[in-house]
């Protein structure tokens, strides 16, 4: 008579059944099964309300809406914001249309991306790199000029590289939800839309640094860590401190090079998400080992190039190199006669926007 156990919904994703609480999204249900069936997510972020639905990386096919109404859904649906129904059947990695569409999304996100991985601080922990590596087609068809934005200085802590931004809106939600006064947002529209303060204002308040952690690409990076070291040469260590800031978790990852703490970040889980945010004092001011209680080496996400150790070889799709060869400044300004078919020598990687 008294069955108080909450009723669970049965969902099938890529032929694997899982039981989840009502209200769970398809993406979260898939994550419960495991990373092999979890759709990629470039804009959704579990700990930020309102994120998701924008990048379209996580589109999946629903072949049966529910046990009650087993009709398929006509279009692919964003798994990050679509809640499951009892008896729903979902196809992700087993569906050709899904995979083909995803290749398209990778391509869309890359056509205007500078592909400056070789000089980008995010390289090695970049979700766009991972996404392109795992889901892209590896060749490029885009022959047009790439969009660029003017540089904006947003203060001493955070470096903004708008050219790399994929407009996930995560940083906007972060500022809205974690800080008391949002001073940056998305300006303009369409493919001119950009993250900006409009008046080149310094973004400084106690929690702004979290924008760096939530940014999936190298659009927002830690200025205090700029060009210090490639991330795969640093050693992540888990640590905590008793932070006086009431909203700060004090739980961090310290990134060491030898004895030195080069960078402090929030702790990312296996989906690359921070669930417990930290304050700017912990992030930017506490860079001595003595500031922290060390817990041990941090676990590095399975597909990260840091753990896989194949950054140089595979993580940049081949066209990345081609692109670099085409776009980067040539060192010889002199007009040289080259034999037919021979390319001009390509020089050092310098983009106008990479100071």
């Amino acid at each position, binding site marked *: 008579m008294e069955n108080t156990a909450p009723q669970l919904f049965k969902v099938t994703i890529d032929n694997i059944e899982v039981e989840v609480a009502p209200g769970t999204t398809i993406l979260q249900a898939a994550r419960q099964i495991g990373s092999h069936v979890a759709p990629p997510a470039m804009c959704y972020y579990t700990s930020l309300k309102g994120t998701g639905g924008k990048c379209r990386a996580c589109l999946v096919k629903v072949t049966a809406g529910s046990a009650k109404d087993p009709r398929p859904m006509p279009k692919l649906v964003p798994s990050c914001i679509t809640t499951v129904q009892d008896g729903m059947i979902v196809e992700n990695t087993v569906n050709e249309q899904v995979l083909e569409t995803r290749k398209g999304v990778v391509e869309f996100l890359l056509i205007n991306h500078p592909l400056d991985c070789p000089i980008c601080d995010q390289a090695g922990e970049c979700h766009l790199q991972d996404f392109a590596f795992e889901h892209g087609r590896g060749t490029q068809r885009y022959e047009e000029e790439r969009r660029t934005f003017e540089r904006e200085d947003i203060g001493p802590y955070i470096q903004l590289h708008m050219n790399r931004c994929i407009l996930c809106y995560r940083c906007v939600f972060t500022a809205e939800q974690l800080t008391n006064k*949002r001073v940056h*947002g*998305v*300006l303009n*529209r369409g493919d001119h839309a950009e993250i900006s303060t*409009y*008046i080149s204002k310094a973004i400084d308040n106690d929690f702004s640094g979290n924008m760096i952690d939530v940014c999936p690409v190298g659009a927002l990076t830690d200025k205090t860590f700029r060009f210090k070291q490639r991330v795969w040469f640093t050693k992540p260590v888990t640590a905590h401190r008793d932070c006086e800031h009431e909203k700060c978790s004090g739980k961090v990852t310290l990134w060491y090079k030898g004895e030195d703490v080069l960078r402090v970040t929030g702790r990312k889980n296996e989906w690359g998400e921070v669930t417990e945010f930290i304050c700017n004092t912990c992030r930017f001011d506490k860079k001595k080992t003595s500031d922290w209680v060390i817990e041990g080496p941090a676990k590095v996400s399975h597909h990260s190039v840091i753990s896989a150790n194949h950054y140089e070889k595979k993580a940049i799709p081949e066209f990345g190199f081609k692109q670099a060869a085409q776009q980067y400044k040539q060192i010889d300004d002199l007009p040289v006669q080259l034999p037919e078919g021979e390319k001009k020598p390509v020089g050092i990687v310098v983009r106008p926007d990479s100071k």
Partner: protein
Amino acid sequence: MTEVNTPEKVEFSPETLKKAQEIIARYPEGRQKSALLPVLHLAQNEWNWLSAPVMDYVAGLLSIQPIEVYEVATFYTMFQIEPVGKYVLEVCRTGPCCLRGAENIIDYLENKLGTKVGGTTTDGLFTLKTVECLAACGFAPVLQVRLKKEDGNYIYYENLTPEKIDNLIATEWV
């Protein structure tokens, strides 16, 4: 350029302020942000374009953050976020208008005014722009101009010909 200066103190005239308050009252308690677009129109009519101080003033009026105003003002094409001439001529460049000679009209205006699309004449009288469909396709070619009136008014000039334009420049847009 005329009318590009932002006054030291940005503040609506008492009449405009009253108008703004009437507009804010159209929306439920706590939803005063809804009044943003109509109030920005008022501000543009008052100062000809929306400088950052003007937008900050509007933010204050609606008790929202300045960035919320910047985000909106840069999204909508009617808002001039850079100094413009007294008359902003916005010519429709969309397909249906082009079927009836809009491209020739744009060329004609460029020559006549001596400025390219996007530019302002040296006397600060005209800024020439192109816009997308104005819902006047049957009366193409068409352009819109904001005339500084009591609460701002946009006029469509339809079935444009070079002669009509000459005439407007000589007599109306002065």
